[in-house]
């Protein structure tokens, strides 16, 4: 079957994931409703769920000039290297301008930049977006005397200082709960791209001088990892993990609100205790909102689940550089691109254009819970009516608007490894934050220089 090219010229093969495959029929219908030619049909490849593996897989397919799959679901975290190598079809040259404009103008800008080349051409259109947010046990927080709703935590966020106090208080009030704040600080890609990036940015720090430099140009941007803001963000996390008495911590924060275990946790392992009611605060992607916000009858917390943006260390504008400080969400999500070797370019383009339609994006939100990459859509009634996720669209919109594009460049894999190692070492206490960051700074500088 699917090796050379599909025998049916009207079937477009899409390398997506298991969610898409499971909902293939609904998605096809949605596309047709959005105006796609009824004759064009989809065939879905589930592909691998591990994003790194998927990246290598595409790499091999595209290098081997395979004609299929025709459409590729690409992670916003690694679309750019493919674009840099021109291994995807240039949509700016080929797609209808109406659709192009819609993407360029209406989508979350953070998301769109992950599908663009340095000269501004579009190669991949965002299909959905992901943002890091904080989920919390609103019921417990309320019981401990806080007022998340009145204080509009959901859209305005809170400061880390308050966050630490709230967590501590709830912990003290509930002896049966072991953990305060669970997040991901294992030595892995997710630390450098996302958790650390969020914490650092919320403190006014950043990798390369400004948010604009995150995507490049390599070797021509300052490396600013040894700034005090960055170090403060580390000290804060150290305070959370090790308590106030440990060295290199911040005194005016409540300490000991995160288990040491975060150092070996990634998404699912950190979610498990929270979902089990054994934690107060939890940082994760929207997929887990769907799980945790499920009705109580299905094992979730229902309305008792609160969601808010990542807290801020310093208020936006307190720091000179633009876009730093305040609430900051790492940007995830996936884009769709076209295999340049495809024999069905026309049909693939038609599918892509249909995907930019509002109805289709909302449909995806409804059936899979994938967040439309377009802020306006989140405010529609249809979005609010989506079970569970619909309750949190405001927060998501705020997060989306404050989303940090991933610092993806051709050398990012290299840098990411070094960053996660040093940050992990600093969090764990193997190295002092200053020392770790100055080493890291020179390492990153070296990498930037080497690959100029």
């Amino acid at each position, binding site marked *: 079957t699917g090796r050379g090219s599909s025998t049916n010229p009207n079937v477009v093969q899409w390398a997506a994931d298991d969610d898409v495959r499971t909902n293939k029929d609904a998605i096809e219908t949605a596309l047709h409703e959005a105006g796609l030619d009824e004759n064009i049909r989809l065939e879905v490849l589930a592909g691998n769920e591990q994003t*790194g593996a998927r*990246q*290598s897989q595409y*790499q091999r397919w595209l*290098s081997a000039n395979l004609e299929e799959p025709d459409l590729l679901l690409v992670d916003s975290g690694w679309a750019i*290297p493919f674009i*840099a*190598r*021109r*291994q995807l079809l240039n949509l700016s040259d080929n797609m209808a301008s109406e659709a192009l404009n819609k993407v360029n103008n209406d989508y979350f800008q953070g998301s769109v930049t992950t599908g663009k080349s340095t000269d501004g051409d579009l190669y991949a259109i965002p299909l959905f977006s992901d943002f890091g947010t904080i989920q919390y046990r609103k019921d417990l927080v309320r019981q401990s005397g806080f007022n998340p709703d009145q204080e509009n935590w959901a859209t305005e966020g809170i400061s880390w200082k308050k966050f630490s106090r709230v967590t501590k208080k709830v912990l003290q009030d509930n002896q049966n709960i072991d*953990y305060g704040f669970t997040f991901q600080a*294992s*030595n*892995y890609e997710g630390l450098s791209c996302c958790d650390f990036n969020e914490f650092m940015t919320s403190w006014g720090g950043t990798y390369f001088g400004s948010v604009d430099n995150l995507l490049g140009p390599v070797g021509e941007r300052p490396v600013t990892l040894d700034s005090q803001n960055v170090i403060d963000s580390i000290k804060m996390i150290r305070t959370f993990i090790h308590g106030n008495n440990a060295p290199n911590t911040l005194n005016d924060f409540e300490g000991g609100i995160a*288990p*040491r*275990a975060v*150092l*070996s*946790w990634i998404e699912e*392992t950190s979610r*498990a*205790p929270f979902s089990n009611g*054994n934690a107060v605060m939890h940082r994760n992607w929207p997929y887990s909102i769907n799980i945790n916000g499920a009705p109580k009858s299905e094992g979730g917390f229902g309305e008792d689940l609160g969601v808010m943006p990542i807290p801020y260390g310093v208020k936006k504008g307190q720091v000179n550089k633009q876009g730093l400080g305040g609430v900051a969400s790492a940007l995830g999500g996936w884009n769709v691109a076209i295999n340049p070797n495809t024999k069905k370019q026309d049909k693939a383009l038609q599918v892509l254009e249909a995907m930019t339609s509002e109805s289709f994006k909302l449909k995806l939100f409804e059936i899979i819970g994938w967040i439309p990459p377009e802020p306006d859509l989140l405010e529609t009634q249809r979005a609010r009516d989506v079970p569970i996720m619909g309750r949190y669209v405001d927060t998501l919109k705020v997060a989306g608007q404050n989303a940090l594009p991933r610092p993806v460049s*051709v*050398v990012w*894999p*290299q840098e990411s*490894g*070094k960053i*996660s*190692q040093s940050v*992990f070492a600093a969090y*764990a206490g193997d190295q002092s934050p200053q020392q770790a960051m100055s080493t890291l700074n020179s*390492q990153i500088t*070296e*990498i930037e220089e*080497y*690959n100029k």
Partner: protein
Amino acid sequence: MSTEQASDKRQEKSGAYAGAVRWIENLSETQFAYLLLMPALLLLGVIAFWPLLSTFEMSLRADSLRGASQVGEFVGLQNYTDLLAGKLDTVALPQPFIDFSQPFKSALIVTFIFTIASVLVETIIGFGQALVLDQDFRGRRWVRVAIIIPWAVPIVIQGMIFYLMFQPGIGFGANLTEMIGLTSTPLANSSSALGIIILADIWKTTAFMALLILAGLQSIDRSLYDVAKVAGASKWQQFRMITLPLVLPTVLVALLFRTIAAMRVYGLIETVSGCTTVPSLSCLVVTTFSTRRYGTAAAVAFVTAAIIGIVVSIYIVKFRDSQGGF
């Protein structure tokens, strides 16, 4: 005899076949040897040697991170010299190749620790298991299955078991390590994670050793034990003077391949702790490949092979005499 000839004639009906058989039988020992090796060599040539040559060629070229082509210009042995000189440790490799200041972060050192510890323990335990399985007792077949079955567990699952077992908040392992005064996040710490990986490897791979050694044990002529018993050998002496030397060729093969496999460990690390926490040589190769530094990655692969080759040579030189078959 007349009958035999008659029936020989009967056989001759398939003339071409008989001709081929005759041709083969009349080959000299050397020709015959190469004829029989042909299919294996052909397969290995296309599926193994050719790709390796091609990869080697790759290792002589620069990385190409931006262009559409996989590798850059020809740079000769520079990838190798840079790698061995440590120039690539930061800029091109995820972890240093060798760096004595952080032994648990150096691929070479981690690989050696893993190899020595796991192979040693596996051999000893595997031998013990094989000896148990070589006995006749009720329920032996079930014990045999039990002992061999870990080998049948897919690496993903093997990794998952130990990952979850030692994941704080999920399994009980972290509580145990904490109780005995070690860390509460064993998987986040390079040395303890390495220990867990070694443990996981021992659990699964001892079966390989046991299986091979068991086969070796079963091929020993039992009457030799009678001789030894009568000569006054105790159980231990029978083991040392008969069993051991006679299974030695098998053990050596097992040891050799276990060492080679251990030095290439990758999947297990990836699933238990991730390559960043416990980098092995193969981790280095895979991660470097996946960052699209093909030239560098190919060079690392060949250096890895060369290191394994050196270790193997030491084995072979040491055990040349013991009928290992070289």
